[in-house]
Structures are given as C-alpha cells and as structure tokens.
C-alpha cells in the first residue's frame, strides 16, 4: 500500500514537473503571444467601442500575427486601468487606450503617477466636442444659447464629474460669462445622448460618434469646439466655437500608451501596428463619418503633445478651483 502511494505521488509530480521543464519560453521575435489591450471603460463604454473597433481592424487586416485581446478594467475615471498597466513594468504585450482622463485623473485624484511614467505608442486621432441641443429646442444658434445662458442657468449633462464634458461647459461659462450651468453628471456618453434625446437635459457635448446617429431626427449641433469646421457630410454648416464668439478649442485624445520599460522591439512593433491601422481604409472611413481628426504622433512628439495637454488642463482645472 505504502509503495503504491509513493509511486502515485511521484506520478502526481510528473505533470507539474513537465510544466516546469517544458514551460520555458524560447526567445523569439515580438510578438510571440497575444497582446492585451486594456480599456478603462466597461464593455460597451466609449473607449471600449474604439478599442474593439481597432481590434476588428487587426482581425481583418492581420497587421500583427498574434491576436489583440481586449481587457476591460473600468472604474475610478480610468485610475484603475492606469494603475494596472503601470504595474506591468516591462511587459511588451500590454497597452492602454487613453482619453483625456489619462491626463486629468492623475491631476484631480492626486494619484502617485502621471502619463510621463508610461511608454508612448501612438496618438491616433483627436475627437470632437460639438454642442448639441434637441431638435425642437428654442436655441436655434449658438448665439441664442449663450444669450439664454446669461439669463438663466441652463440644464446640461455630460459624462462624470470634473471630467471632459464638465470642463467644456465650465469653459463656456467662463468665456461667455454666462450663469453657471446646471450640470447633471451621467455614467457614460450613451446615457447622456439618451437624456438629450428624451429632453431631460437641454444641451450636451457628446462626440459625433455618440450623438451623430440622432442627427437630424432628434438633435442638432450648434457649434463645435475645434479650430476648423467638421468635415462630415451634413455638418458643413456647423460653425466653430471661434466663429460664434467662444474662442475655445478642446478635443478628446484617442491615444495608446504602453507600460514603462518595455523592450525597444516591442515598442517598435506596437508603433508599427498603429501606423498601419492609421492608414487602414476602414479606419479612414470611420474617421470621416464621425469627424475624427486623424493625427498620427508617436515617441517624443506624443510626449510633447501630452505635456502641452497637461498644461492646458492644469490651467482650466485651477481656474475652476478643482485643484490647487
């Protein structure tokens, strides 16, 4: 009996030993295993849609031989995903899709890290912030809206608190000298669009990709906060902020960052992947439809961009008294 037991015990060790003996991975060219794409939103959230779209492009175009796997880490306005990616120092199979919260959350939540700790991969595009009202809203133009906002505090909505959408509304407040907006925070861009279509709020600053489906049946854009007009068919008449006296441009960055300390090879591989994606025909068509401004930046140029962006946000947030 005893002998049998010992023998079987040895047998148990066999699979475990096998794992240890043959488990070692030989050095090979990047990529040798799937790349994880961390998303700071839940499935179906704003950043999630973009990430999955990009992954779909790789499925179709086979830009890298290995699969890209989406990993959702929602919560804490991006803080949870950022911390998780940061913790995987040197892992060349990990990347993070970022929004402006990548810059603002560390500032506002006093996190022990900033964007400087990450490896820059690529800035793919800048997304727009049009000012939307519902279709039969009394505000026909941006001028109407501002005039009304000076009279009473208008009820507006956006994603989260002290994040992108509220920043835009607070900036309008300051530039045009309106009464403070009654800002209702919602959980995501989809909720905001719904609230606007249902007339529970009077204005929003959804991206075209979120609210554009309801134009022209349910909503109308009054102006867009960027330097040039939107190049989407049907949106040619939408003035820029500057044209209507709101000299303010604000965009959402759609960028990709990787953990710190990844190998040169992995970094080049990831940059190459997104370089190819940025030239993809489907991506171009998507960008055209949703008014994405395609801009490809990488390496130091991307870091420089982020630096400028941070400065801009510090100014806005300080003037609101959100940070010291």
């Amino acid at each position: 009996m005893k002998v049998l037991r010992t023998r079987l015990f040895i047998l148990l060790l066999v699979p475990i030993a096998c794992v240890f003996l043959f488990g070692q991975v030989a050095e090979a060219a990047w990529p040798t295993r799937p790349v994880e794409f961390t998303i700071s939103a839940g499935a179906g959230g704003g950043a999630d849609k973009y990430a999955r779209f990009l992954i779909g492009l790789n499925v179709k175009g086979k830009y890298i031989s290995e699969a890209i796997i989406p990993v959702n880490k929602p919560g804490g306005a991006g803080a949870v995903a950022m911390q998780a990616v940061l913790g995987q120092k040197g892992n060349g199979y990990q990347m993070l899709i970022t929004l402006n919260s990548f810059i603002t959350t560390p500032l506002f939540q006093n996190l022990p890290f900033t964007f400087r700790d990450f490896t820059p991969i690529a800035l793919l595009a800048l997304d727009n912030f049009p000012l939307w009202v519902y279709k039969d809203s009394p505000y026909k133009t941006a001028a109407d809206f501002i005039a009304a906002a000076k009279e009473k505090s208008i009820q507006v909505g956006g994603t989260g608190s002290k994040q992108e959408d509220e920043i835009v509304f607070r900036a309008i407040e300051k530039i045009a000298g309106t009464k403070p907006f009654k800002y209702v925070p919602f959980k995501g861009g989809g909720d905001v669009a719904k609230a606007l279509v249902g007339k529970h709020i009077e204005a929003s600053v959804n991206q075209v990709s979120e609210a554009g489906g309801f134009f022209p049946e349910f909503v109308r854009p009054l102006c867009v906060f960027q330097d040039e007009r939107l190049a989407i068919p049907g949106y040619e008449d939408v003035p820029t902020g500057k044209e209507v006296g709101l000299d303010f441009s604000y965009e959402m960055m759609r960028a990709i960052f990787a953990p710190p300390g990844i190998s040169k090879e992995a970094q080049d591989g990831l940059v190459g992947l997104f370089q190819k994606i940025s030239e993809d025909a489907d991506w171009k068509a998507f960008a055209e439809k949703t008014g994405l401004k395609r801009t490809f930046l990488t390496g130091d140029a991307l870091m420089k961009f982020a630096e400028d962006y941070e400065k801009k946000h510090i100014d806005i947030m300080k003037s609101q008294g959100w940070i010291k």
Partner: protein
Amino acid sequence: MRKGEMIVAALFMVVSLIVIWECFRLGFGWEPQQGPQAGMVPFYLALLMLGCSAFLFYLGWRREKKEDDNFFINKEGMMEAGRIALMTLIFSVIVVYAGVYFAMLIFSPIFVRWLGKHSWTAVIAFTVIITLTVYFGMEVGLKIPLPRSPLYMQGKFII
C-alpha cells in the same frame, strides 16, 4: 451563538462608525441647488446600521446562557468549515501572486486528497483535467487572459 451574535453586531457597529467618520470628511449636508453631498446617503445608512446592530448586540447580551446553542454544528463540522476557509485563502493568495494555473496545480491535489479523501489516481486525474479545461477553455477558446505568474509577464514561462 450568543458570543457570535455579539461579535458580529459589534463588527457591524465598527463598520458603521468608520463610515460615519469618513462621511464627516465628505460632508453629509444638503447643498442648495445640488441636493445631498457625497456623504449624505452613506451617513444616514450608517446611522441606521449602527442603531440596528447596537440593538442586536443588546439582544445577544441579554440572552440567557442556558438557552444558547452552539455556533457550529459540532467540532468536526467546525474543523471542516475552517479547512474549506483555509483552502479558499490558499487558492486566492496563489492566484494573486502566481497566477491561476499554479494555483490550480497546487490547490486541486490538496483539496481532493485532504478534504475529499479520494485516491491518488483520482487526485491526479482531477488536477490535470481541470487545469487543461480551464487553459483551453479560457485562454485558447474564449481568449480571456487569466492572471498569470510574474515569470509569464517577463515572457519566460508559459503560465
């Protein structure tokens, strides 16, 4: 049971007090034009919980020792519950520090042998089958990355 009731009620009281303390930092007033401040809802919930758990503590304290029954069914049962609790602790600690696959390779044989008292053949078969099922089901089939060991993160190991 009486002691258990009192300890748990006391713990709930402690939790309520911690929440109340945090709510003082957050503010639990009513902001004009805005409605409740961040701490208001938790503050009143914690007050409710504090009141109820204090009452439960009192009930437990008042109860006669004679009519008291044991928390655990018997000594054997208590030991078994403790062993399962220990096993869950072991499993989750290994998952967090060395990944799911190492956790399964270590946890399954111990459980099936120690608590399940199965033969070594069954132990081995179970361990191998469950590990392979999870690996092929999640990693290969559904492409869901599970927690892996630090070695994997450095690209040196398959799990």
